[in-house]
């Protein structure tokens, strides 16, 4: 069995989003009770919803908790979008990347967890 089966562009983009969020110490993904996630084989990517849109591109929804102390959120969000786009470009998937919608659900200490009521 191939340990690295080929993946769809949707899953590849979801992974880029996951990496971008993980690299940003100012945010974490919501756990969200399973509402916002992408299934990636056996595992799930929490806080990230990657969906194929009608025009064939992949739209991304990031559902995040921002960390205290508060920092300008717009700048953080733009940085995340840029990181995802850069990764998609590197993998020659940029043309397949659609909108990246971001929802900041809460503002918490980094160690308070990612659940959303």
């Amino acid at each position, binding site marked *: 069995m191939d340990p690295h089966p080929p993946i769809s562009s949707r899953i590849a983009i979801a992974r880029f989003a996951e990496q971008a969020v993980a690299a940003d110490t100012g945010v974490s993904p919501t756990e969200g009770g399973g509402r916002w996630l992408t299934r990636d084989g056996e595992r799930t990517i929490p806080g990230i919803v990657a969906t194929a849109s009608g025009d064939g591109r992949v739209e*991304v929804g990031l559902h995040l908790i*921002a960390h*205290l102390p*508060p*920092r*300008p*959120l*717009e700048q953080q*969000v733009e940085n995340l*979008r840029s990181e995802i*786009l850069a990764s998609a470009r590197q993998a020659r998937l940029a043309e397949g990347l659609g*909108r*990246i*919608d*971001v*929802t*900041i*659900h*809460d*503002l918490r200490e980094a160690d308070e967890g990612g659940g959303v009521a």
Partner: protein
Amino acid sequence: MSDFQNEKSETGGDSGSGSTGSRSEPLESEQGRTTIADGVVTKVAGISAAEVPGVHELGAGAARAVGAVTQKVGLMDSRTQGVSVEVGEAEAAVDLTVVIDYGESIPEVSEEVRQQVIKRVEGITGLQVVEVNISVNDLYFPGDDEPEESRVA
């Protein structure tokens, strides 16, 4: 105690000098939309109001009493006490209930709270703050927290 209502500052108006707000469009670009939940704006407003010298704490009397208990058992976040917000696509309105230290000028502290909240909420969330309504619910006297001495041995 009667409330001192220091009402409604329209940003861009006479008292809106702390506002950076010229934005009126939603937080949206070609790359996507950004949505900020009410709870985020509530916490930013609460934290920034509490930073102002002369503000003893936030919240109305009953809410503070209940809040003290619920915070101890982890059911409530002190950062949201005394703050309510209304958040639209591009604008936010904030209502605050505060307790001010006795001896401070209520109008000055209120205005400083208003400017601080406008500056921080707009800077952090990108939303334009169109109103900050402040209700001064109580005054804090040093010694209020100390238990009363018993009159009997």
